[in-house]
């Protein structure tokens, strides 16, 4: 881990410029949030391939479907509360039912949006997207992984949802770390407990594991950057080893990665599970770390959950 902090939305913006140069079919659509979604660089470099739709997310999603059906690879960029928050039906019918080659990159997911408060903190986007057939769901943990997720999404033919976040966070992965859709990465091997997370909250999982080491608890940490399709093999193998699984995410407990893991393990390899996420509440204004603590998804909550499950 190095000391430079960067947001996953930054990684997305950089990747767009990179692939935009190589692939002339890439189009970027944005609904009046060019700076915030980090699509500004792409807009400057490739103005003809940037489409400003105005504050009209429903149309933006449908337009992207039409563009994909005419041979292009459009990226739909907005905040997760607006996309898929406002345009879910267009995502469902125009993108997923057409299996259109649209990439949906949504920033400002989770409590870590911070001061903007509950209306702008998307805690439901994974629950909304997981049941949609044909759709791949990615949630990168740092800027490097966000870049890879964006580039990999282009190489995958079909719709992909990429969940991105606002604050600058630690770089967890390395340039050479492999990124394959549907293949989770084990960040740390361990034998006593499995901690599965997605997104920058993996930083808290790492901190918790370091703390647990002092208690002689050896945690395995899995970075499930792909939420759909879930990497069943890696998760079940780890559960076989540790017999206890904790999932961690900056999302509602209902319908997120925790639900996906519970669906898998309860049917295929039942072990004790704890789901860490926001417990059926909306957020509020505050700093990201304050909010994570208050809503029981921070480092301390992870340590506490591990101790409870190991009792």
């Amino acid at each position: 881990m190095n000391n430079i902090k960067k947001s996953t939305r930054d990684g997305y913006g950089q990747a767009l410029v990179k692939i935009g140069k190589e692939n002339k079919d890439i189009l970027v659509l944005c609904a009046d949030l060019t700076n915030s979604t980090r699509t500004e660089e792409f807009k400057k470099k490739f103005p003809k391939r940037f489409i400003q739709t105005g504050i009209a997310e429903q149309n933006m999603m449908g337009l992207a479907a039409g563009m994909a059906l005419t041979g292009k690879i459009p990226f739909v960029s907005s905040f997760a509360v607006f996309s898929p928050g406002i345009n879910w039906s267009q995502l469902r019918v125009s993108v997923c039912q057409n299996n259109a080659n649209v990439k949906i990159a949504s920033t400002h997911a989770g409590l870590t949006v911070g001061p903007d408060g509950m209306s702008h903190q998307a805690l439901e986007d994974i629950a909304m997207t997981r049941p949609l057939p044909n759709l791949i769901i990615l949630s990168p943990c740092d800027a490097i992984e966000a870049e890879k997720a964006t580039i990999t999404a282009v190489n995958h033919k079909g719709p992909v949802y990429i969940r991105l976040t606002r604050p600058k966070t630690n770089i967890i992965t390395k340039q050479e770390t492999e990124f394959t859709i549907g293949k989770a990465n084990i960040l740390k091997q361990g034998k006593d407990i499995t901690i599965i997370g997605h997104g920058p909250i993996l930083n808290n999982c790492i901190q918790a594991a370091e703390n647990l080491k002092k208690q002689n608890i050896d945690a395995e940490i899995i970075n499930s950057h792909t939420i759909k399709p879930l990497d069943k093999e890696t998760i079940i193998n780890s559960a076989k080893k540790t017999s206890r699984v904790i999932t961690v995410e900056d999302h509602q407990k209902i319908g997120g990665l925790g639900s996906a893991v519970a669906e898998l393990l309860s049917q295929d390899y039942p072990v004790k599970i704890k789901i860490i996420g926001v417990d059926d509440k909306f957020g509020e204004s505050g700093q990201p770390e304050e909010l994570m603590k208050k809503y029981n998804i921070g480092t301390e909550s992870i340590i506490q959950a591990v101790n409870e499950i190991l009792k």
Partner: protein
Amino acid sequence: MKTKEIEKKANLIRQDIINMLAEAGSGHSAGSLGMADIFATIYFSGIVNHKLKDPDRDRIILSNAHICPAMYSALARSGYFPIQELLTLRKIDSRLQGHPHKGSLPGIESSGGPVAHNSSVAAGMAYVLKLENKPSKVYCLVGDGEQQEGQTWEIAMFAAKYKLNNLIFIMDRNTIQIEGETEEIMPIEPIRDKYRAFNWNVIEIDGHNIKDIIKAIKKAKKSKKPIMIIAKTIPGKGVSFIQGKHAWHGRAPTKEQAKKALKELRNE
């Protein structure tokens, strides 16, 4: 094809619609029958390039997706799939879904269902085709009740901003929707002025007059702006007991009613 022959095709489309819906036991009679003349003109007048294998073909998109029986009939009678297959509409394993799905059925460019969704898809296609200087036009059929859906006006702004002069909308102005008259449920008038105010060109025509339809499409092709052809139609046109009745928006004829309807249509 001459006007008289296009009218004959429209009559065949109407007969197909009656047969299909009676066989399916559910579906949308009024809107489908009302658009038969427009579909016949699009597919048989020769002024729209619908050759499916041509990458430069015009795109034909159905935003008021529920009237798909009319489009299925036009596609089958254009030779894209067997006419016999029309009778599989709405049945299990059929390529003819209750609302069109871009699957294996030739001629369906985009899946639809909820109104206005495919209008955005059409605008997205038009944007790319214009960007790449392609000769193709995008024809998008929309309903009048559909104008109540907010997404419609997002599209109207977008198409005007990007001067999508290759985008031709045809509105089925039959004045009805599921629950009754559009002007009672949520007035859309003055619809012509609204589109003009959104910086579109607008042409109003009689949606059952083939010559009018051809003239309007020819004019639309030369438009410098996105264009809305408001086609005044009679819902259920051609079948006396369906014609003009909103109760037939989402209803299919029984086998007995179908016999009566076919008799009327064949005597025309």
